[in-house]
């Protein structure tokens, strides 16, 4: 498993740069990860990221957009505004969670 260093912190990531260890994430790291993909975090972003982190801790799976919308109370349209083009992937990346997976 590759290891990368951001701001002096060594973190484990997969081939696409998604964190593989839940506890290596921090809010400061999220800011850096967001900046890397052109997202500036606001309170609205943090609401989504916080839900994603908490939901993952309960479920053991990265929440889908529909789950963030129905359980987290953030409309899908808004998620597309906050994390343009690929919100599911971008949210997971910034929240330090595994990439949502497909099945075929």
């Amino acid at each position, binding site marked *: 498993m590759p290891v990368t260093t951001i701001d002096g912190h060594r973190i484990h990531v997969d081939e696409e740069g998604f964190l593989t260890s839940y506890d290596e994430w921090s809010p400061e790291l999220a800011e850096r990860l967001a900046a890397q993909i052109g997202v500036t975090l606001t309170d609205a972003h943090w609401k989504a990221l916080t839900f994603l982190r908490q939901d993952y801790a309960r*479920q053991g799976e990265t929440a889908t*957009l*529909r789950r963030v919308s129905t359980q987290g109370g953030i409309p899908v*349209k808004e998620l597309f505004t906050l994390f343009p083009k690929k919100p599911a992937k971008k949210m997971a990346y910034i929240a330090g969670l595994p990439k949502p*997976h497909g099945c*075929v």
Partner: protein
Amino acid sequence: MRRLLVLGAGTAGTMVVNKLRRRLNRDQWRITVVEERDRHFYQPGFLFLPFRRYAPKQVSKPTERLLDDSVELIRGQIWQVDAAHDRVVLSDGCELPYDYLVIATGVRPRPDQTPGMLDGGQWRRSIFDFYTYDGAVALAPALDRFDGGRLVVHITDMPIKCPVAPLEFAFLADDFLRRRGLRDRVDLTYATPLPGAFTKPIAAARLGSMLDERKIAVEPDFLVERVDGHKLVSYDEREIPFDLLVTVPLNVGAEFVARSGLGDELNLVPVDRHTLLATGYDNIFALGDANDIPTSKAGSVAHFAAEVFTANFVEHAAGRPMTGSFDGHANCFVESGHGKGLLIDFNYDTEPLPGTYPVPGLGPFRLLRETAVNHWGKLAFRWMYWHLLLPGRPVPLPAHMSMAGKNRPEE
């Protein structure tokens, strides 16, 4: 008398009651199944109905005839599971107590969940689904009438029953249009919410070219927000116009699951992915498409999972630990048109790989490769389904995925 209550007599429910009827003592166990419909459908056959490769009568049988004689069948609509009191309430007020409950009510397409899809005036006129019997039958004359323009094959959101079926539909549509000399007059587009037609890397590399060869355009990461007349509109405001839309609506579990507080945001029952025991319960299982396990919603998964579940259930009911562990095993024939097909075999941890199945080196089926034998395998499967799988007879295929016969290509 101990009571096992099974909700749903679809693929998973039927297999499980028939299997358990052989394993559980008839003097000690009463097995009851609740099913609303009086006909059981062979759902993989729906793919062939629009192209008139199957006649409607080949894909359904009366539900009652498929169940062991000593299984009690109740025709009724399920209103709620009252888990606190171990009973199920039907819409007519009838109450069914249970010692053990199996929820096998699957998922169903919900076009009403996408604005403009069902209520925009085009449903079953220029918008069709083929995941229902009625939809697949209605699509046949629409395809006959179609003489050119924009044909869009579309997936609303994941998970869906049989994730490869939309691809198969696109391949078969290409074949169908070529045979009729219409292919040059049709723009064929495959719109998916996933990053590509296939997402697992080896399958994507092996199969991605099949869409290119057929000049089927792929619109990836397309999450539909609404249907606007003859256009699909995504959340990021892309538009895909169509003359004929073949869509897979959102797949959602049964309403009673939500009403009973047993479901997630898609009314799927959260379960332990290895034992299928519902999270937080000791006497409720969810099988087949009704649960939330992270593998394909497909009959093969229901079958392999049912094999593991049956043995586990006997142990569990006897107060012993469940020793079986379901690995997410799935295999699917992928019909590719021109009388050929592929086969994929995978589980929770192993992506589809090339090789042979089920006998290493011999097959006769080829994994991730188009062959005529795979196509014949798919057609022969209908017989297996009616005569071996549903009656719960032993099938000489291991429930767990095997690496024998598989090979991982060099990087």
